[in-house]
């Protein structure tokens, strides 16, 4: 019971750690936190070249320390590899509300501004390694789409 309580508290702390590039979602929403045990938090990198990876580990460390969990270690594992399927439904809704089309298997993205699916890809590469640049043909606004990975 004690162990259960302490992992609940750890999850709560981790849910308060935002992604450094997309602060609308937490590291838990993104599926970066793979497992939580009373003495250890296991995390996984997202995109290979994501420069935020080191910042994320540092932010989690700082949040754990501030909440009094100095003794909890952080472990990084590569396998099984992270995919965008690990992003929670809540996380996808937060991305959409923030103006980023969440990853989906659909051929076209849904415009986060007006909701139209009459959209087109401008470039495979966007403002960060995880996003592509898209444009809405209905409202003509450009937007980022999280790459399906």
């Amino acid at each position: 019971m004690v162990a259960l309580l302490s992992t609940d508290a750890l999850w709560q702390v981790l849910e308060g750690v935002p992604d450094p590039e997309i602060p609308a979602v937490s590291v838990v929403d993104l599926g970066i936190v793979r497992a939580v045990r009373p003495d250890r938090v296991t995390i996984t990198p997202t995109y290979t070249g994501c420069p935020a990876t080191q910042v994320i580990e540092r932010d989690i460390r700082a949040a754990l320390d501030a909440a009094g969990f100095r003794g909890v270690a952080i472990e990084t594992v590569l396998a099984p590899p992270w995919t965008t399927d690990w992003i929670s439904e809540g996380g996808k809704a937060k991305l959409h509300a923030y103006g980023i089309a969440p990853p989906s298997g659909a051929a076209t993205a849904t415009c986060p501004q007006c909701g139209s699916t009459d959209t087109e890809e401008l470039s495979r590469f966007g403002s960060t390694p995880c996003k592509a640049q898209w444009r809405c043909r209905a409202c003509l606004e450009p937007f980022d789409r999280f790459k399906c990975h």
Partner: protein
Amino acid sequence: MAEDPILFETLLRLGDDSLILGQRLGEWCGHAPSVEVDLSLANMGLDLIGQATHFLNAAGAAEGKGRDGDALAFHRDVLDFRNCWLVEQPNGDFAQTMARQFLFSTWQKMVFEHLLASRDETIAAVAAKAVKEVAYHAELAAEWVIRLGDGTEESRRRMEAGLDWNWRFVPELFEMDETATEAAARGIGADVARFRADYDARIAAVLAEATLEAPRDQRPILGGRRGHHGEHLGHILAVMQFLPRTYPDATW
């Protein structure tokens, strides 16, 4: 001698290819023909340097002498690098850069597809993630080969020259020396010779769509995997290694 010399060499080859091409692409930052292309090149460079970090950290562990990825990237000399010649080639103009990317990423994607089944857990895990990123690189480069090849007289001339420059470095990608053969036999490395035909078919299909002829075969340049490199690699390393060598304990 490394604790596991075959694994060490296998990881160095993978890591050095990614590291050197990533560094090369970084030279385009702020110089590309458009902002979208600038972002594409920088993002590809980031993907490659991310791969290199994982591979070289693992190489350090396989070596067992306490070196990490940074030590291997910044404190080795030219003769100890194991990248292929193709990735150290100069950027030239945009067409030459895209020709190099097309020839390399098409190959690297096939390598990673094979490494998904590697018996080395780290290699398999890095390949699983990187294969999706490299698919983007290969597709983007192929699109540019087609657009420039089947474009204006000027763009066509440049793409022909770019392919011509890089063509002689392709045979090295498929060389199976003793180390590569043993790594493949142990199930940790890819048997690259097995997908030469697939590679040639893919290259031919894109060149046909680009209305380009394959360059004439030239005398192949080999030896990068054994530490024989061209003059260009030394210049890249001079730029890349200057800071950490001058200020060895510098941190952000």
